[in-house]
């Protein structure tokens, strides 16, 4: 059993989106727990295959943010 019914994998560039997620935490902005953040060095690193693998593994959505 997963802890939540949905899982969104969010690939976040460490230069911007990951830092923004940090700030969201600092500001105590609440967002759905379904979002699971994966730190990446740059959105350029996101491979099409990485997205497909995530979906194949069971992700309900993939967010690339950078």
């Amino acid at each position: 059993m997963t802890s939540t019914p949905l899982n969104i994998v969010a690939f976040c560039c460490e230069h911007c989106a990951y830092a923004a997620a940090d700030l969201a935490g600092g500001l105590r902005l609440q967002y759905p727990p379904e979002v699971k953040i994966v730190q990446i060095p740059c959105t350029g690193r996101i491979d099409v295959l990485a997205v497909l693998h995530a979906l194949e593994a069971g992700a309900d959505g993939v967010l690339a943010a950078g």
Partner: protein
Amino acid sequence: MKNRDGVVAVPAPRQEVSRLDIVRISSPVRGDAMSDPKATLTPQSPVGAVMVVGGGIAGMQAALDLADQGFKVYLVESQSAIGGKMAQLDKTFPTNDCAMCTISPRLVEVGRHPNIALLTDTEVLDVRGQAGDFTVRLRHHPRYIDPAKCIGCGDCAKVCPVIVPDRFNEGLSVRRAAYKLYPQAVPNAYAIEKKGIAPCRDACPAGQRAQGYIALIREGRWDDALRVIKLDNPFPGICGRICNHRCETACNRGLLDEPINIRALKRFVTDKVYARPRQPVEPAPRLYPQRVAIIGAGPCGLTAAQDLVRAGYGVTVFEAMPVAGGMLRLGVPEYRLPTEIIEREVQDIVDLGVDLRLNHRVDNLDDVFAEGFDAVLIAVGSHEGVRLPIPGADLDGVLINTHFLRDVRLGRYGPGGDAPPLGQRVLVLGGGNVAIDVARSAVRLGREVHLACLEARDAMPAHPWEVDAAEEEGVTIHAGRSFERILGDERGHVRGVECQRVVSFHFDETGHLHVEKEPDSTHVLPCDTVIFSVGQRAGLAFIPDDAGVGLTPKQTIAVNPNTLAATRQGVFAAGDSVSGTAFVIEAVESGHIAARSIIRYLQGEHLEPPRKPELPVVRLTREELEARVARGELHRQPRVPLPELPVEQRVNNFAEVEGGYDDESAQREAARCLACGVCSECMSCTFACGVNAIDHDMAPRDETVHVGAVILAPGYQVYRAELSEEYGLGRYPNVITALQFERLLSASGPTMGHIQRPSDGRTPRRIAFLQCVGSRDQNHDYCSAVCCMYATKEAVMAKEHEPDLDVHVFMMDMRAFSKGYWGYFERARDRYGVHYTRCRISALYEDPVTHDLILRYQDEDGALHQERFDLAVLSVGMEISPQVRELGRRLGIELDEYGFCHTVLFNPLETSRPGIYAVGPFREPKDIPESVIEASGAAAAAAARLGAARFSLTVTPEFPPERDVRGEEPRIGVFVCHCGSNIGGYLDVPAVAEYARTLPGVVHAEDNLYTCSQDSIKHIAEQIVEHRLNRVVVASCTPLTHAPLFQDCLRSAGLNPYLFEMANIRNQCSWVHSHDWETATAKARDLVRMAVARAALLEPQHTLEVPVKQAALVVGGGAAGMSAALSLADQGFPVHLVEREAELGGNLRHVFVPRNGTDPQQVLRSLIERVRAHPAITLYLGSQVVASSGFRGNFTSTIQSADGGRTIIQHGATILATGAQEYRGPEYGYGSDPRIVTQQEFEARLAAGDDLPTSVVMIQCVGPAEQYCSRICCTVALKNALALKQRRPDAQVVILYRDIRTYGFKERLYTQARAAGVLFVRYDDAHRPQVTADSDLTVRAWDPALHRDLLFRPDLLVLSMPAVPRQDAHQVAGLFKASLDGDGFFQEAHVKLRPVDFATEGVFMAGMAHYPKLLDETLIQASAAAARAARVLSRETLTAGGRVAVVDPAKCTGCLTCVRICPFDVPRIEPTLIGVGGVQGAATIEAAVCQGCGSCAAECPAGAIQLMHYTDAQMRAKVRALFEPAGFVPLDRIGERT
């Protein structure tokens, strides 16, 4: 010529370079020193350290540039964190980048740099010595939190009750006294703001932290409030009732309306807490064998008993009476102080472990010592009432106050007790508080009570409110009477007191009373009982004369007033027995002092207390308070009234008279507190801090450091626009400054990025920006250079937030003078629909009902308008703060009347004191990139002075050798952090750690209170060794700030730092799912599991050292190229300077007219002379670079001379300074008529000095300048216009312009030109000037103000042609893998923060090829490029590798995808490599320059590229683990392609 055609130049090895004459290498100084670099000598061995003052973006840049090239840097910042103004900004123009996202990585870099000492809260006191060897005295102000211990968890701020305006948010929100400047602050540590001691605390003998408990009451934290009171006073309930509250007299609020009702609030707290069942008190542990005897269980003795027993000593209190409490219990009537309160507070002390012996009178001091006590405290009070020696004093019916009150209090006369020994008419003699107590007690016993005293009614020693209460209860007061004698009746019983009326009285120095009486005023006050209440003294009979304890003439015990030690060793005395009758709060303080002395005595220390640093008392003035009221920060509000028992209900019983506040009224009263001291030392933070980082006793500390140079980057302050009263800032809530608006826009600002107007929180519909507030006015003759653009940016961002907003900007000129600015303005106007009106607004009016703002203005057509706006934003200009002016004065550098630091053209960054440099807005108002450029430039100048001392003071962190973990099964350690309550308060941390233990590969898991504390870091290192861990996962906060810390921990334990992974369960779980414990816990488990899965696959990564060719190539021999070459050569690096033309000078050869008094041609001559003479510069004239390859630190280039000869050179860095040229297009008839010339041609004629025209028309913004601002044309036109007017004052000069863009101090040229009679006519794009050139030269221009065409017939039409890129710019860019912007100028790596870097590493730019700029700007940028290059060249090797892309050539098809996709132009096809199918040629990626973004790895169709540390397998394992909660796939299958 030193051109060595055809020779392969081998750069000099580093040793040779540093052998160059160091004196020669010293930087030139002011004035004509450019031609004589030896003018001031830098010491032979300068100090290899630099002090940078100011931690804003400029200071950080200078610090990094210097530290990275081998200098120790002291970065001095006056605030508690670095970041400066940029950290306050929301976005930056013209790219709309998030300011914080841009600056944050740099903050972290500065904070972690091993060679930057970050000195926050620090000011510079003075600088002595000379360039190369300065001695700087610094003062570190206390921040009260040790940044080395603080881990930034914020627990202190959570509990801090003090609210102050948040200055970081420009006063739009509040913060606590314990605060972090902003969320991303570096150092990531909190600070406490403490202005001083609040006057209430200062006035209290016991130093009660009234401000602290008042703030806690406001917060509804009753228990904490009581704890604060009890820190200094064990009798809060008692003092809350009977204290004389000098705190209230001192309260600053009294200057405004009424003091805070502090005593009532204190009582309120005790009532609240005491209403609940009493919590048992834990006995204090006994730490020492010594025992102390205390004689007397009054407030003084019990206070000392408490302190001593808490300190770990044995304490016995001897009390003669059957009850404890002393005068509180026996002297103060019940109606003022209920017994149960006393009993409770006494019990709290006794339960600590005090041995209280009631009914135990001490008869002899020696007996006490004989019992084995090590010290004795005499605190017997003054219980002996005084009977005046007047006739009749011993008559029947004459009583003594103390005995009477004691008997009443002990219940002797209560129901079932004796009848009170009172007649029907009682006369109390005395006017003090005790006399009032006596009188009011007698009233309650049902007697008619009179009171007679020596003093006049309004001069009675009793508190006025006590006297009033007595009168209300029926006491008749006979003031101003002397007591002659007491008359008795025949039975010897009192029948009256004979008095006279008193005119005046005084006590002489021996204490004798002298009374002047009214003649013939003798009269009798009839009574049948007299109670003396004229003073008390101590009963000291137990001290025999031979006990060795001395007494004073007043029959008190003689003590040292500082230590309270009596004349006999081991004996101390305190309280009323020393001081005579005083108030309970004084007894308490006396008890504290005695206890401290006794402890020192028992510890064998010197008895005199050590001096404590004294904070100033914060005394506000009426004016300050009125100003705060005027600004709306404070409102007049009298005391919240206190309920009181009506008189009729109180005269016949001993019920408590005074009522208390209820919760709501107490909190309302508490909210009136002004928090004068800011921090109140309530110690809430100290109790809350889990890492013991708080120290309220920190004091300022001075330090002396030695540096070779000083760089001043102190920044600016925004104009305090409340001084321009016409705009109503401070008075009208909806008028704000642009910096305030910036905070409103910021997602981390007070409204979380929602634009709300302050008066009602409503989203505004119409916003007006008012330009030039504090710039270009009577008090500021300069332009602040940034306001036009930031207002445009804020307007655009406002429209982004609220597309329906109507935004108007009221301005004089649109000063969009720099790169990308004009296009940005046009987008704002055309795409976002921001309205721009050319009008300076002179005043704002407020509609007092709606708080809307009313603007009246005239448009360009002359029509008058009146409009209403919801919000007005003042575009405030830049000023230099008084603190910075003071700094300038202390350092002995010249500043102008505004405080700006002017420099000379020859040496544009050095102040009047050699070795001290100035950068940023401190020199002249300017924006971020130029401040950054100047910072780098100053770094180069300092480095040139100190080059010989590079790496002399720097350190390299040392780590043990790495353990080889290859081939080992993963042994993962997981450390889950509570982060105090930040994580632990919102999710089940132990459960997450427990869960981690079950995951594959995990051999150790634990939870830590603070994983990043020094102790925990050490502990983790120990665990790594103990459990032979080979991978570490920390589940805590964000890797962006904390990963390097933990990675260093791994290195210290012998592990490769790449064997580390983090799970961010704070920012991504506890803080964002803070209302759902289960969900947050479950997600934390998920994130830990994902981290563990990736960790299992992590591999060590090793860096390699790539040698650096320590020479530079500078392309372009103009002012920029020559300056850059000289700067590098002065720093000791060989330079190859290539100029395509046969002579040096570039565009500077065409500049003749000085702008600031310095002859540009003199600058040129001196530059050429120095370049030619410099032994480290190899000059290649008439030559071009025809090939260049390699990477940062290791380039190879081919230089071809005019005759075709080639030189191949090797260099580590490249500076491109290829210049620009004046546009020569056909606009306005240029080229068709000799009377139409360019500005450059005109300047040449001015320089020649003959044939000067009598009338000139200049047209600005010609040709391409309609698309981008060429920046220099306005200044050049004004300069030339003034030069003409100077030589021919009768000459008529007309300037046709779109905007006059004289930014900064160049505004003064504009002012001078207008004063000199130069005529300015504005045109817009719809009405361009029309030029016809036949026999007459005519220029026709539309005057919008006059609504008609103007016709000019000048001798000469001067066209301000813009600077345009050279035709071969594309070729140059291609050769060096540099990129160009849309206008053909060089494109910098980052507009704001990397303004002289290309995206291609190791290649830098300077001069007009980057963008048009003035000579001083060019010279500065050249130095900056040199500094950036020196950052590469100063190292013998560069570290490469780690997170880089690696190609497996065997899989590479050579398809070029990676070559095309790489944003940094790193991959290339190496023909010698063998690719797929054995075909020659495969991609290779140079580790030294790979940025590690992974784009190539993602795009490679053959899967031939892997990004180390982010391999496909690692990423896939992490994602897949999310969906395999039972414990993911076995390790050996992870990463398989399925």
